[in-house]
């Protein structure tokens, strides 16, 4: 084998350097911090101090927030009463479907609710439906927002079928969402004195002012063979049909409540409230449940302990982790930059892991 190294596989760059440096016109590009990737930068790393400080701050912020949320939720008074099973007369208890679908049977039902604690006004009345998939895609699609907004778009019913038109013309409002409007009604009285239920302002303002037209009136509604829910007064424009607007704002989950009305007086503790329910709505064919709910609200909303408890748990966990880290750094300090922990030094003979 020769030992001559005349032409090598890699080029000798030495010759070119002296030539380019002696050129008067340099082709070196203009230096800028951006193109040379030397921008001023902040390079944080997770030092022990930072980690402990972060966990401590999270713990300190979260625990009070959790206590505040929990106390707000605890202040809310809620009465939930399931009535769909008990509001069926005993002779129909084996054939609830026949009961509910027969329009000639009297559907009134009287329930008594006991107020557990003082409920300050306004007390909100909700109806709760379980196992009702208002978020099913075909159901959500089956409406026509254009038609709801203006009279001139009456005929745009293409997504609404089969509830789109009758022989007399298009159905307003069309679609399954409107067709299945909830139609149980509730009348409240205490000590034989009727309680006023305020059914104004239960829908969102944007619904009343922008999504439902003030000159659109119901037409041909529930006039077909199958009646799915409530009928609408055709002399009231849609922007004033609060129940319809509340119903048409589709719920997120299969168990949901919708606002029925407000009671604007205080309900004293241990009062017995008589509720006369018209049990019209058919939830029996799909084993749904119907519940009547009376609830006050706090500044954060209704009764849900989850957020308060979760905040407290996470805050406590973070404080615990902060303490653990303090102990760990004090008891087991590691020399920094110790290369024996490198991945290819940990396995024998430096084999890749």
């Amino acid at each position, binding site marked *: 084998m020769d030992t001559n190294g005349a032409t090598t596989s890699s*080029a000798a760059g030495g010759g070119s350097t002296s030539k380019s440096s002696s050129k008067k016109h340099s082709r070196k590009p203009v230096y800028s911090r951006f193109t040379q990737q030397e921008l001023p930068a902040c*390079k944080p790393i997770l030092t022990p101090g930072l980690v402990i400080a972060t966990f401590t701050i*999270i713990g300190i912020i979260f625990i009070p*927030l959790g206590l505040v949320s929990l106390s707000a939720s605890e202040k*809310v008074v809620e009465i939930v009463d399931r009535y769909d099973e008990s509001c069926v007369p005993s002779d129909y208890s084996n054939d609830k479907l026949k009961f509910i679908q027969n329009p000639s049977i009297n559907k009134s039902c009287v329930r008594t609710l006991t107020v557990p604690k003082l409920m300050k006004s306004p007390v909100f009345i909700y109806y709760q439906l379980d196992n009702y998939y208002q978020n099913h895609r075909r159901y959500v699609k089956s409406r026509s*927002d254009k038609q709801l907004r203006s009279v001139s778009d009456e005929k745009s019913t293409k997504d609404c079928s089969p509830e789109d038109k009758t022989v007399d013309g298009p159905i307003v409002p069309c679609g399954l969402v409107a067709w299945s409007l909830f139609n149980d009604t509730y009348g409240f009285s205490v000590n034989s004195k009727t309680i006023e239920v305020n059914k104004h302002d239960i829908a969102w303002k944007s619904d009343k002012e922008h999504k439902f037209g003030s000159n659109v009136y119901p037409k041909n509604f529930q006039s077909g063979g199958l009646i799915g829910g409530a009928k609408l007064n055709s002399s009231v424009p849609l922007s004033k049909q609060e129940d319809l607007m509340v119903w048409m704002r589709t719920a997120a989950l299969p168990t949901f409540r919708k606002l029925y009305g407000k009671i604007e007086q205080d309900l004293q503790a241990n009062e017995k409230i008589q509720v006369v329910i018209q049990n019209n709505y058919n939830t029996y064919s799909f084993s749904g449940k119907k519940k009547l709910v009376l609830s006050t*609200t706090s500044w954060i909303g209704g009764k849900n302990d989850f957020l308060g408890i979760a905040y407290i748990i996470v805050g406590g966990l973070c404080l615990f982790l902060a303490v653990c880290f303090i102990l760990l750094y004090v008891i087991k300090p*590691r020399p920094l930059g110790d290369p024996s922990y490198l991945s290819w030094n940990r396995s024998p003979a430096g084999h890749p892991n």
Partner: protein
Amino acid sequence: MEQIVSGKSQVSALSAISEAFALIIDGKSLAYALEDDMKNIFLELAIGCASVICCRSSPKQKALVTRLVKLGTGKTTLAIGDGANDVGMLQEADIGIGISGVEGMQAVMSSDVAIAQFRYLERLLLVHGHWCYRRISSMICYFFYKNIAFGFTIFLYEAYTSFSAQPAYNDWYLTLFNVFFSSLPVIAMGVFDQDVSARFCLKFPLLYQEGVQNVLFSWRRIVSWMFNGFYSAIIIFFFCSRALEQQAFNDEGKIASKDILGGTMYTCIVWVVNLQMALSISYFTLIQHIVIWGTIAFWYVFQLAYGALPASFSTDAYRVFVEALAPAPSYWFITLFVVIATLTPYFLYSAIQMRFFPMYHEMIQWIRHEGLSDDPLYCEMVRQRSIRPTTVGFTARRAASRRQ
């Protein structure tokens, strides 16, 4: 033939005591060594040597040697040359680097990367090669993560709509997630991210081994990022839906409908995905600050703008933010809680890993942080203890073994 065989036996006999060999062969002998019956033995001999010099070889032979090495060993090959006679070799190798200058532009035109002088090869490999490897692997892992986190929340919601394919979010929210609300931070990371500065890349050349050993894109790392996406989606979805159940959403007794749940979950996703980016990089220039915080701010601006469009276009997102979400304290409480709860596990893992099981580039970051980077003895210790016995030449190995 005999020479090759005897050379091979010499190498294998003495390889046990870490002797380094060099092989020198010229063009005329190469013509015989590259014949089909001899080339495998030649290759084995060449691989056993620490360095091989082929002199007086023709362009065709250069290309054939390169091809032999590439196919025989299955490793990635790099060729560098500056003349027209190197063109074949540059094209044959996996990476061809052309040097522009004295011998014309032929090499440059047929190369993958062009540099001006041979000495720039060091910077190209150690600095840019390392950065590129890190950027690409981080970017791909992060892409999987953010799409899994986003898509899995939609999948989880489907379980609550009896799998009817109703998405939890408004259509345009879905479409624009990968366009506006999570793309710029990833692009900034893929283009600008640096784990250690150029100075340290050159000072600790063994950082390049991270790429050779593929530690940043191993299956374990890919699967861990995906797992991160899955559990983030689970936490976001279940915490949001549990906190926004059927009870009143605000103090006016209104209930959280689908648009409110969708808006809250989407806000949480945008925050989590962007803050995760802030937690995984350790290099913040003005650009990174603008894209990360700007993306989050843009989400709120977008909600306002999209909500202001007429209801015929924005359907159920019409005025959701202005009317329902922003005035309700529970929206802000839920967002804060879900975002922190989702990121705490990753933060914990990162803190433990950084301190107790740091990777090589993290060690260098610690050295820089501690201010020991200018201490030559300390750096020498880090470098020498990191060396694998088979990657460096004879003198360095002897020096290292003497030190130990």
